[in-house]
């Protein structure tokens, strides 16, 4: 314990240096900005800013890049809540209830709850990294391909619960999502799958492209249809920050979300994407009145947002202690470290303790800054909703186009958001929800990889999924969730089976 405090003391003495504080602030600010802009993600931005950090000392550079990363998580929820566009896989869930809250004139409360829940989660996760970072890495090594496959199956079971309409339609959407994920070059054989010879499909469909289309563009099309729906958002602004009653309502969800997100974030196989989904599912399952979810339940914002931020933070554990990046942003951080002559891995903690602990301390400072940056901004964001929709949607459209183009510099990506926008519009018209599709897409790619890998390793024996205890438990949870989602609807009168979950 004394060790921990002296280490944290070292960390804060590094992170509170004038230059580092300024860099942390700059990182958080840029991160918030790119998070808010639809399409532009932290990956493109960190890549672009890497050369700028060349001139800095490594600690400052990494503090700034880390700031961009979690700043983007904060900013992403803003766009999800205000205009129903998830910037990243992890903010898909926030759109469900967050945007509904905004439509009911509670945008400020939703944004405030998201910020406070994220801050709480960030604080807990930082402490967790500081106290248990090294021992927790053992957990990472328990997870082999079979366990990850089970985890992904569990995630897909969550996706069924996510939907609030027909179960059958949700299942169909998940399958379509997994099917879309299969488009592109097959990882194992290098063969092209369902690309129809189009060069722009050889690497599959980018998540941002699918999300911008299905959510951003489709939402515009739908709003253009319904005159009455679009000005609901601007009707009343309401209070800007959550009150005590709302915070009390959100608190337990925040606690649970933090725990779930922190645990999943430790897994080096990008388990963090599951955090918000898992948190949402649990909140919906244990709620007294699950029907509130999808209609603006505050727990549906607090739970996933805290899980998201906790996961974003604990994702640094495999990077800092094993040297293994769990996702694309972390892979960039590896690059940033190596460029500065630091090879991430078990050695970092002992060889450059000022960097290791300085970064951890700066995470907490960064979270505090984000809270300070974001709470006053809530007022600005909410006022943005007052812009007439006839000016709002061309602006959204242009930001989406520029953002998507900036990811890969491919005009075809921009065209694809138009295609997926039309598809999303059709889906809405036929009563399908895009969120399960997106989740199926995110998990589908990973699921297939892990399935094939574990069967290769088991030499084709599917029993491997039940013989390994962790994997077996995860499968049982998945089936329990599915049964819980399906059974009540089966017991209802037959007419309702296909329309209510």
């Amino acid at each position, binding site marked *: 314990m004394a060790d921990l405090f002296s280490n944290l003391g070292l960390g804060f003495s590094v992170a509170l240096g004038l230059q580092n504080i300024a860099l942390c602030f700059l990182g958080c600010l840029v991160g918030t900005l790119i998070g808010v802009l639809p399409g532009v993600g932290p990956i493109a931005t960190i890549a672009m800013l890497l050369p700028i950090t060349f001139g800095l000392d490594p600690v400052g550079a990494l503090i700034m890049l880390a700031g961009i990363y979690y700043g983007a998580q904060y900013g992403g929820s803003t766009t999800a809540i205000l205009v129903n566009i998830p910037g990243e896989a992890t903010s898909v869930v926030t759109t469900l209830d967050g945007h509904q809250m905004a439509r009911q004139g509670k945008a400020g409360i939703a944004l405030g709850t998201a910020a406070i829940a994220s801050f709480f989660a960030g604080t807990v996760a930082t402490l967790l990294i500081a106290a248990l970072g090294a021992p927790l890495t053992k957990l990472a090594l328990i997870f082999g391909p079979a366990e990850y496959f089970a985890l992904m199956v569990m995630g897909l079971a969550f996706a069924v619960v996510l939907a609030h309409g027909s179960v059958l339609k949700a299942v169909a959407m998940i399958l379509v999502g997994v099917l879309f994920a*299969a488009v592109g070059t097959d990882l194992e054989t290098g063969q092209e799958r369902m690309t129809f010879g189009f060069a722009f499909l050889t690497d599959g469909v980018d998540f941002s492209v699918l999300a911008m289309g299905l959510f951003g563009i489709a939402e515009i099309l739908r709003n253009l249809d319904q005159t009455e729906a679009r000005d609901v958002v601007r009707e009343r602004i309401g209070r800007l920050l959550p009150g005590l009653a709302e915070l009390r309502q959100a608190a337990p969800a925040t606690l649970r979300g933090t725990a779930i997100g922190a645990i999943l974030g430790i897994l080096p196989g990008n388990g963090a994407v599951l955090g918000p989904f898992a948190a949402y599912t649990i909140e919906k399952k244990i709620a007294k009145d699950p029907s509130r979810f999808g209609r603006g339940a505050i727990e549906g914002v607090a739970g996933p947002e805290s899980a998201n931020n906790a996961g974003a933070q604990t994702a640094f554990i495999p990077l800092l202690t094993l040297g293994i990046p769990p996702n694309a942003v972390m892979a960039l951080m590896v690059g940033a470290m190596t460029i500065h002559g630091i090879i991430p891995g078990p050695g970092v903690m002992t060889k450059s303790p000022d960097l290791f602990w300085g970064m951890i301390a700066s995470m907490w400072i960064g979270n505090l800054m984000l809270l300070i940056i974001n709470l006053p901004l809530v007022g600005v964001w909410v006022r943005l909703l007052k812009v007439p929709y006839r000016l709002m949607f061309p602006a959204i459209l242009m930001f989406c186009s520029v953002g998507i183009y900036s990811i890969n510099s491919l005009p075809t990506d921009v065209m694809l958001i138009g295609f997926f926008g039309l598809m999303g519009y059709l889906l809405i018209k036929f009563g399908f929800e895009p969120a399960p599709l997106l989740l199926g897409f995110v998990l589908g790619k990973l699921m297939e990889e892990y399935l094939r890998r574990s069967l290769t390793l088991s030499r084709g024996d599917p029993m491997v999924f039940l013989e390994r205890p962790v994997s077996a438990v995860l499968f049982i949870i998945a089936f329990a969730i599915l049964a819980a989602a399906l059974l009540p609807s089966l017991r209802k009168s037959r007419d309702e089976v296909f329309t209510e979950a």
Partner: protein
Amino acid sequence: MDAPLDGTSSRRGPVRAPQSLVAGLGLIGLGVFGIWAGSDLDYGSLRAIGPGLMPFWLSIGVGLCGLALAIAGFTHDGAPLQSFTFRGPVVITLAIIAFAVTIRPFALGGITTPGLGLIVAGPLAIIIAGYAGTEARFIELLTLALFLTAGCMLLFGDMLNLPIPIFPTAVVQAMTGVLPARTMLRLAAGAMALVGLGLLVVQRRSGRREPIEVARHSLTT
């Protein structure tokens, strides 16, 4: 959005939920398409799963869901088909395509579009998109386009340093050696913002809004 169960109980005829039926048929179509699209791929074995196995079974799954939905369209009461409008989808698609083909040289068949950069592609997308709504006014959209494009140029090109073409390729070549790219970007953005401001002033002076617009649309209040 979930489909409300209203207005269908009075309907008689074989189809009781037209939305489900059409949605189901659509999914069956997608499933068949998926099977066809993946038919050239090897299924492999359990020991070494081929690239074709997952797409095949997923397509079957999608098709089965579609079948169940289509059947439900005959056996269960459900939502009617919703009305579609064409103006929005068509115009928005046009706007997106306009952006995509002008941002940088784009070759389609034998034709290559000139790369015009963000300074042209941005306003083009905004102004075309504006006409997807029924309340579009050119001056207003132009003002918006000038401000937003100038902002985007500074934000993406200058601050975030993203490799997005700002100016037409021809202009970049012509100005090589005359003006540094950054300076040119800032000058152009400043000029656009100024013109935008001018337009704003002009709009303010030339009376408020046309009375018809306000009367017809709740949004302009």
